[in-house]
């Protein structure tokens, strides 16, 4: 039987790996991309008219809290991956801070089995760096690698013991696993709720200083440099951290770094009425920090955009700002927010956006995705840049609604998504298999 053919006709194809940004047809045969070019033959192919739309490599999110196992009241593999698909993500990495945490083979295997059963997109597990995420002793990293993890992280917690972090970086080298650092010196951030600055001062809320991130990022950059290991810095939020990464990259340190849509879009001013949906860790920082993050994304000091999708129930978020948990969801609004606040005003090109959402995350993990090269796996996301919509409680596939963008007027919507050549989103809605 000949493979199914699908022709995306006349879209704006943006493929940073091949330095392509042009109006073209894209032909998918079976699971793979067959060709990108002008007026490709449609014979035997289902044709999807992509005129006026943007054809991206499927987005890859290195930082998702799927909450399974253990906290399925917040999110499940099924709901989390449906949210991912709706947001144009074809591959997501599941953070290890589940209950129990992914510090051993059975938990990783449980997640992978759950993904085979109910996932709509690719799920790549991240293993814990330390046993029980306790920051006291190394997890069985070899066992985790054998179980299929693609990176290591204690995200949600910081590894405060510098010696342990050094040994983790060294040990992970033999498995070629990057360590994703949630950089936070918790002796500096303890008790903090929002960015320490003029807004927290006026509001009488205990602050989380930028130094709590930068001090730890600086430590990790030096340890990565000394060990020659692969470091990825999660959710960079502070200008000081950006400066440290820029300097480290200048010295040739093997570091990549990510930034979230919410840190790119918002500042601590959003907390003026103490709304818990703007509470996350690291916190929304100042206008100056946001400007530094945007500039660093443009010049490549920050490599990837990751959502840090962190679902929490309404009951948990319906508390005062101190009691509410840190974290916001982000999969379904990410590309629309980025198009609205960065691309539309001319602060970021589509190529830069695609690099940060697809190509660079694939490179950070060393996985053969994130491109539209002929022969590559056909993970493709089609976005209508003209679609205006509003995020409301009803639009979310995620089990949780803790989005800071509810009520925002957004420009740009995901219309079609293909995973290995198979359609998983049609006219903006997840196709139920």
């Amino acid at each position, binding site marked *: 039987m000949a493979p199914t053919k699908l022709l995306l006709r006349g879209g704006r194809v943006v493929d940073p790996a091949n330095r392509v940004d042009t109006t073209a047809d894209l032909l998918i045969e079976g699971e793979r991309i067959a060709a990108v070019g002008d007026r490709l033959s449609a014979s035997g192919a289902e044709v999807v008219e992509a005129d006026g739309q943007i054809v991206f490599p499927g987005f890859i999110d290195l930082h998702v809290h799927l909450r399974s196992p253990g906290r399925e009241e917040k999110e499940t593999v099924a709901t989390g991956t449906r949210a991912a698909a709706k947001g144009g993500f074809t591959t997501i990495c599941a953070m290890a801070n589940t209950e129990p945490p992914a510090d051993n083979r059975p938990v990783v295997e449980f997640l992978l089995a759950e993904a085979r059963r109910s996932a709509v997109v690719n799920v790549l597990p991240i293993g814990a760096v330390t046993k029980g995420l306790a920051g006291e002793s190394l997890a069985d990293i070899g066992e985790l690698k054998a179980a299929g993890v693609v990176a290591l992280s204690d995200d949600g917690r910081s590894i405060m013991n510098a010696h342990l972090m050094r040994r983790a970086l060294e040990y992970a080298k033999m498995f070629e696993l990057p360590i994703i650092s949630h950089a936070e010196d918790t002796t500096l951030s303890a008790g903090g709720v929002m960015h320490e*600055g*003029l807004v927290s*001062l*006026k*509001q*009488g*809320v*205990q602050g989380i200083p930028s130094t709590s991130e930068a001090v730890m990022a600086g430590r990790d950059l030096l340890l990565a440099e000394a060990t020659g290991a692969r470091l990825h810095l999660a959710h960079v939020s502070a200008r000081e951290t950006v400066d440290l990464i820029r300097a480290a990259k200048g010295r040739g340190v093997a570091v990549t770094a990510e930034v979230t849509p919410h840190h790119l879009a918002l500042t601590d001013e959003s907390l003026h*009425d*103490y709304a818990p949906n703007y509470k996350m860790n690291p916190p929304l920082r100042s206008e100056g920090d946001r400007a530094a993050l945007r500039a660093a994304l443009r010049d490549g000091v920050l490599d990837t955009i990751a959502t840090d999708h962190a679902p929490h129930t309404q*009951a948990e978020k*319906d*508390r*005062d*700002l*101190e*009691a509410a948990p840190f974290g916001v969801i982000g999969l379904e609004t990410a590309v629309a927010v980025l198009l609205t606040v960065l691309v539309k005003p001319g602060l970021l090109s589509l190529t830069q956006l695609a690099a940060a959402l697809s190509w660079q995350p694939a490179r950070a993990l060393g996985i053969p995705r994130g491109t539209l090269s002929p022969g590559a796996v056909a993970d493709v996301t089609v976005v209508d840049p003209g679609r205006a919509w509003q995020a409301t409680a009803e639009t979310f596939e995620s089990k949780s609604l803790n989005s800071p963008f509810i009520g925002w007027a957004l420009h740009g919507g995901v219309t079609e998504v293909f995973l290995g050549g198979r359609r998983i989103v049609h006219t903006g809605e997840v196709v139920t298999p």
Partner: protein
Amino acid sequence: MSMSATPWTRKDLLGLEGLSAEELTLVLEQAKAFKEVSLRPIKKVPALRGRTVVLFFLEPSTRTRTSFELAAKRLSADILNIQAASTSLTKGETIMDTVRNIEAMKVDILVIRHSVSGVPLTVAKTAAASVINAGDGSHEHPTQGLVDLYTILEKKGQIAGLNVAIVGDISHSRVARSNLWGLTTLGARVTLCGPPTLVPPGIERLGVTVTYSLKEAMREADVVMLLRLQLERQQQHLLPSIREYAALFGVNREKLAWGKPDMIVMHPGPVNRGVELAPDVADGPQSVIYDQVTNGVAVRMAVLYLVSGGRPAKTPKPAPHPERPVTA
């Protein structure tokens, strides 16, 4: 002080930040009218007859609660006291659940004290009742700020142009924040003084001066306001010891001489005697601490009256005004 023509249009009093000089003056004038009432043999007026005031205190505070209770009583309101121990909040009920329950009883004014900043604001966003912030976390304590403004005005005859030094733990003080907004709006020059660990960096951007020297702070001061030091600050590495704090920032008779002879000494209470204030200064001729307590009732009467839809008057009218603009 002349009668202001500006009407009070706010449903709530959540903080002094953002209040105009006219609005502040309006409250102070109204408080003056009520203070005159409190000097009469019969101290009660019927301004809030038939209205229900809930005193919802989720953090212990005998002083502020008593002051509000007396104020509401003198306005003839019905009063409901709800305190931390008597609520189901400990059983996992959220603050909003509790407020919805209280609201279902059709109350008119909610006076809220809470240890977390922002809670009164969150409540005010959904509550139909007027909300008065009786102190939230380290955010604001607007009625205490108004009491202090009133007391300064009473003692000094004006606020514009005065030098006011606020000394102590500025970082964690809601009293300092409310005073900062009120005083700067009314044209006083505010100097904040304390160790750098207790004075937030960047606070100069709010239009105040910072010094780490008590002598410097007191040199030109017409008013020196000492803040209560929470004694646990030394466990948080903010201070080496209470003894050293008292030596550097506590005011005793000797240091009082650094200031002008007519400088007044204020404290929101309760005083840690021997820490921020020596007993002989607290009870001395320059201290206006007990005037602050007395004025507390009149100022809180004014606030209750205005948020409930009252109109400024020298002598409050007996009938309550039913209409209440909701524009806050």
